């Protein structure tokens, strides 16, 4: 801090924390982009799976003695599997339903999940003890930053690469893209679209759980969770262009950096300005900043 010029140091600091915030938002929202893109299902209950991931992470750590990272991975697998069950049992019935019914259904699911979380874990936020290597502050050359936020940026980058490679470079991804572009044609060439839906819904849920678990040190896990961050998730998904998976990364980072910077310079008006900016973007680009050109 002493070495760098004050202005450069400020910009670096704002950029770093903005990107870290964006990385958390990305981890929370990318799963919704996956399911929205494929199934055109307005799943407002996405945060429920993030919360579930958080609770499983915390429980695995405090009750089963798992270290942080394995606990998050276990949460992603469990919640992904649970999401697949839920897709088979409930979501499937509403694919053909009007959007309003999908919205009502997923809002209902939010309330049910909040009540269950409160019943099972109590109304207070869950304590999460991050490992020592994540609690330190680290000098990364451009300044001293908390290791946890550096870690979140790193994981965000890894996940975005993995999702990109999964969608663009694998057979599974190719099937998804085929089903999105033309479902009937995909079915007629032998792709089992129904099973594909189940798997990709599970994937979306697993990604949400990953975000909830990894971000638990920043966004505490408590029964109000699915509602509390819903607005941010929806902003990212809408600005990205509904269902645009790569757009979600850009939108999350842009929102994170813009929000952090604007609130630094205009602390009292920051939120209003940011939301006006989001409105302006959506007025000009109703389909998001990076609409799907291939869909």
């Amino acid at each position, binding site marked *: 801090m002493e070495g760098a010029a004050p202005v450069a140091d400020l910009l670096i600091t704002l950029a770093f924390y903005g990107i870290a915030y964006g990385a958390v938002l990305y981890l929370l929202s990318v799963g919704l982009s996956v399911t929205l893109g494929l199934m055109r299902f307005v799943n407002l209950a996405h945060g429920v799976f993030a919360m579930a991931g958080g609770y499983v992470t915390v429980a695995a750590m405090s009750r089963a003695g798992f270290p942080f990272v394995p606990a998050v991975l276990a949460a992603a697998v469990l919640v992904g599997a649970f999401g697949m069950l839920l897709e088979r049992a409930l979501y499937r019935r509403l694919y053909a339903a009007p959007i309003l019914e999908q919205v009502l259904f997923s809002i209902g699911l939010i309330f049910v999940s909040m009540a269950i979380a409160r019943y099972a874990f109590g109304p207070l936020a869950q304590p999460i003890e991050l490992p020592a290597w994540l609690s330190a502050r680290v000098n990364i050359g451009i300044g001293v930053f908390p290791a946890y936020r550096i870690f979140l940026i790193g994981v965000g980058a890894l996940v975005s690469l993995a999702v990109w490679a999964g969608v663009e470079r694998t057979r599974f991804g190719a099937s998804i893209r085929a089903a999105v572009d033309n479902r009937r044609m995909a079915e007629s060439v032998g792709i089992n679209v129904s099973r594909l839906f189940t798997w990709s819904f599970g994937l979306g849920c697993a990604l949400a759980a990953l975000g909830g678990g990894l971000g638990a040190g920043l966004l505490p896990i408590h029964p109000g969770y699915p509602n509390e961050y819903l607005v941010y998730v929806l902003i990212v998904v809408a600005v990205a262009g509904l269902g645009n998976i790569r757009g979600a990364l850009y939108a999350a980072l842009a929102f994170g950096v813009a929000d952090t910077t604007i609130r630094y310079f205009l*602390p009292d008006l920051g939120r209003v300005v940011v939301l006006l900016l989001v409105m302006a973007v959506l007025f000009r680009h109703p389909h998001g900043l990076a609409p799907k050109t291939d869909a």
Partner: protein
Amino acid sequence: MKKALAAPIGVAILALAGCRAGAPAAAKTVKVGIILTYSGPDASIGEAIDRGAELYRTLHRTDLPAGVELQLIKRDETGPTPDVAKRLARELIVREGVQLLTGGQWTPNVSAIAPLVTEAGIPYLVMSSGTASTTRLSPFIVRVAFTTWQHSYHLGRWVASNGMRRASTIVSDYAAGVDSEEAFVRGFTEAGGAIVSSIRAPVRTADYVPFLERVRRDKPQALFNFNPGGPEATRFVKAYHDLGLAAAGVQLVGPNAVVPDDELKNMGDAALGVISASHYSAAGDRPANRTFVAEWKKAYGADSLPNYFAVGGWDGMAAIFAAIRAQEGTLDPTRTRDFLAHWSNAESPRGPMQIDPDTRDVIQNVYIRRVEKVDGELRNVEFATIPSVKDPWKELHPSPTS
């Protein structure tokens, strides 16, 4: 044989039934309505108050006069929703015929209920709502909780008198936050401190980093914060820690909502060293509090801790019990109100407390605490006491009717 036995058994059953029916018939039932938030995102506060009240009721059941039974009728207001609270209060007063109303978790809800209790002439014992003016809403309101000004005004004075002369403030932008900012600034500047910068952050800020980054650049000696508590408090303290503000010499101070006892575990070591002002800490080293905490853990689990809301429920129930005892179980509304307005308790877990008959508001010690690790657990350890604090706001804003 069968016939021979039937008659005596029948007589015995009748006699037993007669006894059982006889006892309640002679008993007096005191009906008390309690309106709290039992569901929704803010249920943790309602639950803490309810648990405090229930714990007192369970442990002191035998203290009621013989034959007097206390019936507690609970209603869930679901959150800061004045219209719901008002409807529930009307129902409790009109249909259930309660002799006393209590709860009072939210100022807006208390404001909605106030005209009803004035009209019905029913005492309303407020266990939480911290807005200073609450007790002026109705002559039937008596408060056993605390006021925002008791904490923040005296914290401001204490901070400025203890070597920190430059302070910044960050408060959540809603009535209670603005109120506490005003209280802190008043106390702090009166004692010779200077405010460097003041920020009002939206409620439910997910990331406090930008605000705190500003503070880091302003380099104050103290940073005052007020937030609604719960997860918001954890997010704030973690961001304060992440930016290394403590290491940079910026002391975080605030009322109890900044470091609630039951949220400390969630904050972890990031909370170490935070200084706060409160009328109650679970770590308070008083015999009455040690008993209270021990009984609490016995009832609600070894991991559980009473917080400053819970002590409001406990003391509220203690006041109700005292009122019932004083009138032998027949509550006259006005006499009950007058009794409560003169009530005092030297043995509260929070230390000595009394109600100021002029304002019907609580007079109590305010403790300055620091988060420390005791036996491996984070606690708010009291290290300075400001004795017998009256609500400073009412002293600064006298009202002819009070």
